[in-house]
């Protein structure tokens, strides 16, 4: 069951070709949605905390975290060390141009 949930989460993230914003989280299925809500609110968190919230293995959680780093929702924190990776949830868009927020927000809520 856990493997199925992991594959679903992986697929949902891999399908995203653009940056993922915190508000995009409402579109994801569980347990990814709740885990992301939790860590985004924390701001700074460890891979261990992320994995515990997801209830996936550490390797699985790392795989998801790597995609989230690539999609600019997470950034690897300078506090990371050999034993633990720390992340910071990113709210600002370094790769998105300065522009008025798009009006497609309602699609996310439907």
């Amino acid at each position, binding site marked *: 069951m856990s493997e199925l949930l992991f594959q679903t989460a992986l697929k949902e993230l891999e399908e995203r070709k653009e940056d993922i*914003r*915190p*508000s995009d*989280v*409402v579109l994801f299925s569980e347990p990814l*949605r*709740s885990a992301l*809500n*939790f860590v*985004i*609110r924390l*701001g700074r968190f460890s891979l261990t905390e992320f994995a515990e919230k997801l209830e996936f293995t550490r390797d699985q959680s790392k795989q998801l975290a790597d995609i989230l780093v690539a999609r600019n929702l997470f950034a690897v924190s300078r506090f990371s060390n050999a034993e633990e990776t720390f992340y910071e949830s*990113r*709210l*600002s*868009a370094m790769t*998105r141009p*300065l*522009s*008025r*927020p*798009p*009006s497609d*927000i*309602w699609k996310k*809520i439907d």
Partner: protein
Amino acid sequence: MSKIVSIHSFRGGTGKSNTTANIAALLAADGARVCVVDTDINSPGIHVLFNLDETEMVHSLNDYLWGKCSIEEAAHDVTGHIGGEIKGQVFLIPSSIKAGEIARILREGYDVGLLNDGFRDVVEKLELDYLLIDTHPGLNEETLLSIAISNALVIILRPDQQDYQGTAVTVDVAKKLDVPKLLMLVNKVPNSLDPEDVRTRVEQTYGATVAAVLPHSDEMMSLASSGIFSIRFPDSAVTKGLRSLVDQLKD
């Protein structure tokens, strides 16, 4: 531990800014360090409640978003403007009220995420107990981001059919974003309605706690945003309701 609280409503005119200003004043009166951010860039107004004149605004939120200043440089200490006995401190990050600057930000836009990064920075830099985000009405990327990082969300509505419908969407989104504390505030309730009936109806409709039901107040209308109501009228039924809301935010 610091708390970020968003005050939101689906529609305009529900009393967000007044409520935000009063929450700030009541928290600070009890000794807290509080900062209020006016994120209603299109139609800023909460600075009026804090008697912060345009000439006193050294920097605004707009300046931060344009990279002209740090977020803490845009924070003005308005504690002395509130009146009453304030043991803590209140800061305000106002949005610019200059027409040209409002027009510019609407035309050019801004990085919504930068706004939220600023929230986290200012909590650290000013060593805040509470950051209150006075959001603009309705759901869009900005308000969703504010809700996503908030520890508590106060949703304000009036006992009005338009408010009831739209609020359902907001509550649904807030639950999807797992806001740790969701409180409803029913405002401007006419005397003809029984407050407990209103409370029951709202709680049953949305499955969320009603922190307070505030009666329509002629005193509030007469004050007309010229000051902080709970400081001017400490014994009013409205102030009692606001204190109840503040107590629930502190828990």
